[in-house]
């Protein structure tokens, strides 16, 4: 498969850029933050995204979606990374849609995919239990109880957790803390009895929540995928999210690079445009090279999710590790090259630095993924 966007994806990119720049630029996130928005995202913008078909980008046509695939989803995420648009796109349109379409039962598909496609339902994945991502480290428990299960435990860093209609929760049905076997995924309505959700105040001003499960009762139908064998589905959903985050970070990195290059062409110091200083030129050129590498590995990961999702893990791993490192370099260099103004809250660079840090940490940081990469390569 050629490593270029096809015409359809190219058009989607232009449309996304146009819409986001006009309707959901960085100033929207700033406003949501300053006004302490309870939702943490703009529902009108979200509805507009649904109308444009973005929420159905990964939903099969049979369930009312446009099924454009991961490259297309990545195109949207990348443009959102340029504008830092806050929305449940990642948690729902990418991860929720992946969860149901790849791992859901027919009943689950029929119930949830049309709602996701229509923008009527928000889903959130509750996986982490401590500050560091580790999907197989599950202490939340699900005990058999009558025909169903009773869930107990705590989850943290749940993106969109406090606005989600449905939580996808990993819990242990067998095995011990760090074992791969014995993990099961459950669909838990956020308003189920025993579910307590507390929004976390995050550095990126985006949505994240702590969730406590206290004897939450669910039926057997609430199991997503296999009982005890849920890690495979969990990793599949996570990989979709990781690729989406990588695409988002790619957009942020590109935006930082472009903004900085523009600033270097304008700002004067010592009687010269600072863009003429060779040391800054070389650093900007190095950053450009790194951003190009990041774009390539992200595109390859997305393409592989489209054509061979079961073989995408290594590439997603590489993409998240590489793009996390590149995007952080981009925000750091952007801030330093902007000098004092970059440090002010009034300027946008800080927003990029904060969001990239969160995106980098979410579902495994560069260290987590590089370590996993080494293990997958048997060393």
């Amino acid at each position, binding site marked *: 498969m050629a490593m270029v966007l096809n015409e359809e994806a190219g058009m989607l990119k232009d449309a996304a850029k146009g819409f986001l720049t006009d309707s959901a630029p960085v100033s929207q996130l700033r406003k949501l933050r300053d006004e302490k928005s309870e939702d943490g995202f703009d529902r009108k913008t979200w509805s507009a995204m649904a109308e444009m078909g973005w929420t159905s980008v990964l939903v099969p046509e049979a369930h009312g979606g446009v099924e454009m695939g991961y490259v297309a989803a990545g195109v949207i995420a990348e443009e959102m990374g340029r504008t830092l648009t806050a929305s449940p796109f990642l948690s729902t349109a990418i991860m929720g849609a992946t969860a149901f379409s790849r791992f859901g039962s027919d009943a689950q598909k029929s119930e949830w995919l049309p709602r996701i496609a229509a923008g009527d339902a928000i889903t959130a994945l509750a996986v982490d239990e401590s*500050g560091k991502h580790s999907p197989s480290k599950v202490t939340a428990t699900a005990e058999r109880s009558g025909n169903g299960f009773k869930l107990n435990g705590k989850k943290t860093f749940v993106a969109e957790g406090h606005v989600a209609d449905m939580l996808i929760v990993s819990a242990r049905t067998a095995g011990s803390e760090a074992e791969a076997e014995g993990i099961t995924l459950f669909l838990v309505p956020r308003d189920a009895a025993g579910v307590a959700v507390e929004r976390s105040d995050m550095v990126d001003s985006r949505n994240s929540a702590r969730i406590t499960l206290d004897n939450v009762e669910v039926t057997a139908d609430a199991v997503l995928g296999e009982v005890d064998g849920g890690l495979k589905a969990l990793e599949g959903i996570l990989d979709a999210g990781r690729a989406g985050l990588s695409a988002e970070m790619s957009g942020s990195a590109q935006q930082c690079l472009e903004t900085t290059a523009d600033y270097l062409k304008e700002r004067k*110091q010592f009687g010269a445009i600072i863009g003429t200083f060779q040391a800054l030129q070389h650093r900007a050129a190095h950053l450009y090279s790194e951003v190009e590498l990041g774009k390539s590995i992200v595109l390859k990961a997305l393409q592989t999710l489209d054509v061979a999702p079961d073989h995408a893990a290594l590439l997603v791993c590489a993409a998240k590790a590489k793009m996390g490192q590149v995007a952080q370099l981009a925000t750091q260099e952007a801030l330093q090259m902007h000098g004092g103004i970059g440090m002010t809250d009034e300027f946008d660079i800080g927003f990029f630095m904060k969001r990239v840090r969160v995106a980098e940490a*979410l579902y495994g940081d560069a*260290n*987590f993924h590089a370590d996993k990469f080494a293990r997958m390569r048997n060393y």
Partner: protein
Amino acid sequence: MADLEAFRQEAREWLEANCPDEMRQPMQSEADAVWGGKKFKFSEPQKLWLDRMAEKGWTVPEWPTEYGGGGLSKEEAKILREEMRRINARVPLQSFGIWMLGPALLKYGTHEQKLEHLPPIARGEIRWAQGYSEPNAGSDLASLMTKCEDKGDHYIVNGQKIWTSYADKADWIFVLVRTDFEASKHNGISFILVDMDQPGVTTKPIKLISGASPFCETFFDDARAEKHNLVGELNRGWDVAKYLLTHEREMIGGMGSGGMRPMGDVAVQQVGLNEASQLADPFLRADVARAEIDGMAFMFTMERVADEAKAGQGTGANSSVLKYYGTEFNKRRLELMMDSSGSEGLEWGGEEDVARGWLRSKGNSIEGGTSEVQLNIIAKRILQLPSA
């Protein structure tokens, strides 16, 4: 030596008798620091401790007694610091007046200027701000355009400064102004002291990405300055500024070390150890170990540069090495703290609030002369590489 021992004994007894118990507790946060000045709200023990120390001249132990100092020798001052540390006594007063203006006045000021300004600094009565950078004169400080006109018996200042630390809380400001627009860039600058308690001086805090506002914009709108408050010669203010910048550089560079919890300990607490008793994140472990080694090498470099200076060896330009490496290292250290903390470190307003420190550290390599400016200085002054 016997004298020094006697001094130690005396200092120990005096501190024991005079340092309030509350002032022997570690500071809980930046909010516990005593900056003094007219607007400062002291707690009772803070005020008591400051007054007692100021009385002895020990807020500025090495300044001459006639200017409010303690008149101590280097050795005595060192002993005083040791004795204060022994009982965990807090520093009674922090101030840019002590760290920056004071040394400049002692070197460049007249006897009258010293008499007027140094004692109130020593007693924490007047808080000073620094007016250096301007919106269009960041790294290129000498291109500043704030205008100072001679009006016969006084000066009138017009212009804008930026990045003035805590200007909204200060009483007076030392300002770099342009007094000759015809002269070459570095030759028309003067160094002047301005009372901020006048309508012509206004300040506006700048909110940083870390959420705090330690800096302000400061506006001069027909502000008045007295002629006797010009420090050094007219149009020779750049000399004073350079002298001060070197001080500032060392101060900021020094933040990269000392008094902080070792990175390895923090990482272990956050991430835990594996079966082999090694940090559970092996990549973080590699980064932390390499950084701790660099941090150690940096700490010893600060020590060596100081010892060389004492021995009359070494080069002054090494302060640029300390500023450059110290601030870049501090940024790296905080990135690793963030790596260690994972999502907990990404919470805003959490207890440890590593995120605010992380964001704040990004300014270290900008303020007080950017890393790029330090590298220019090293290349030119130390390596003697030619200019274009």
